[in-house]
């Protein structure tokens, strides 16, 4: 199959002997050449076979090793919050919260007419961008009593990228809802502000998350720490992922934001400037508020 080089001298065995019979020596040389050529072809075939075997083995080993790694990752994820029954944090949007309808953590007055649904993952970089652009606006409308925000926290990045930061970080953030809306939103903003690189699973370490929570006033109590360490709301995070997956027809992407059911798409800030997107976002919110009277 390979190696055209180095075979300079061969060939010309056909026409050469037209008039004259080849001598014994020439015939012996010709036989040796043929033998050498046959040996060479045989070696090349073997090399080709070895190459194919190497490639096939690489594929098989790859599938086995990666499958193993993936199973280990899954086992680690499942270990967090294992044995805890399903429970939802205080003040979620569905009552009662169930596995099928786990609800979102509400920020703002529950009786506010406009609902902003925010489906996000504490590890997801585009969620951080969405929070940077729209987080303050959400808070402003919620604090003014015009809208309530429902945060559905999911573990998308863990599932598609490995690790457990979405789960541990998200479940611990959910614990903050038990302490109160003010603590929740402060910790929420802090987590996105300090979000590690997508490939860095820093939030998978509960101590890192709890240390960060220490910056939020009146949050870190023994109850809060225990809630985070035991993974009390791990099942709630996973239930929210399943809920969102069902809602989106199996293809989960975050951030996924709706204002009274109207999806708001985060656009590339290079294409649509941040200020424009914020103005558009306000316009949708204002329209929803006006519509609700």
């Amino acid at each position, binding site marked *: *199959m*390979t*190696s*055209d*080089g*180095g075979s*300079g001298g061969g060939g010309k065995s056909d026409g050469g002997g037209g008039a004259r019979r080849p001598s014994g020596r020439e015939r012996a040389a010709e036989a040796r050449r043929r033998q050498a050529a046959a040996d*060479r072809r045989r*070696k*090349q075939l073997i*090399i*080709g076979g*070895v*190459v*194919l075997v*190497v*490639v096939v*083995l*690489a*594929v*098989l*080993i*790859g*599938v086995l*090793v*990666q*499958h193993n*790694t*993936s199973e280990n*990752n899954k086992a680690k994820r499942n270990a967090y919050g294992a044995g805890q029954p399903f429970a939802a944090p205080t003040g979620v949007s569905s009552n009662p919260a169930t596995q099928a309808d786990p609800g979102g953590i509400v920020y703002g007055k529950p009786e506010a007419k406009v609902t902003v649904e925010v489906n996000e993952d504490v590890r997801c970089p*585009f969620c951080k961008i969405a929070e940077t652009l729209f987080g303050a606006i959400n808070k402003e409308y919620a604090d003014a009593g015009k809208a309530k925000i429902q945060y559905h926290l999911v573990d998308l990045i863990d*599932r*598609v*990228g*490995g690790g457990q930061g979405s789960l541990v970080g998200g479940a611990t953030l959910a614990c903050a809802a038990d302490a109160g809306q003010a603590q929740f939103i402060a910790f929420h903003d802090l987590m996105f502000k300090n979000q590690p690189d*997508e*490939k860095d699973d820093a939030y998978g370490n509960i101590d890192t998350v709890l240390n960060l929570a220490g910056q939020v006033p009146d949050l870190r109590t023994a109850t809060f720490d225990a809630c985070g360490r035991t993974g009390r709301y791990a099942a709630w995070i996973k239930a929210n992922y399943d809920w969102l997956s069902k809602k989106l027809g199996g293809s989960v*992407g975050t951030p996924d934001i709706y204002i009274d059911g109207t999806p708001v*798409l*985060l*656009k*590339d800030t*290079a*294409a649509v400037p941040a200020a424009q997107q914020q103005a558009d976002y306000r316009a949708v919110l204002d329209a929803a508020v006006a519509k609700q009277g």
Partner: protein
Amino acid sequence: MASKAPAKDAPTGGGLRGFVDTNSQWISLVMRILLAVMWFWYSVGKLGSPESNAQNVRDFRLLPESLVTPFGYAQPYLELALGLLLILGLGTRLVAIMSALLLLVYIVGIISLGARGIYISCGCGGSGGAVTKGHTRYTLDVLRDLLYMLPAAWLIWKPASKLSLERALLGDPI
């Protein structure tokens, strides 16, 4: 070994052609290394995180779900194997053909993304994931893979190279 042409007609070593002829085995060595480095580079970024590579494959929405995971898992190891064989210089033409085919798969995949209006950060070299419209670099990605086709094409044409295990095994001058 190649033409010790008499200094009359053939311009010995004259111009690019002469240079290529006299040094083709060294050029092939360079091409082997280039292609191998590319495969190592492609492979290393994916080895650590099977889930994210499977997801990158899934994002292309080309393979049926039952094939997404096996392909995503095997892909970095296949790339690693191709790189390794190129460095060793074993079955160079066969490996170059497989390299070209795999690159072709990538190129077709990326082009089809653009054609179907799917916006992802194509994960051949780096991170993947969905991106917003306008954030894609499909043209660059395709150009990059086309560029990598060049060493593969050269090696299919001239697989014989310096310092290759294959030639040592065949008893040719290495």
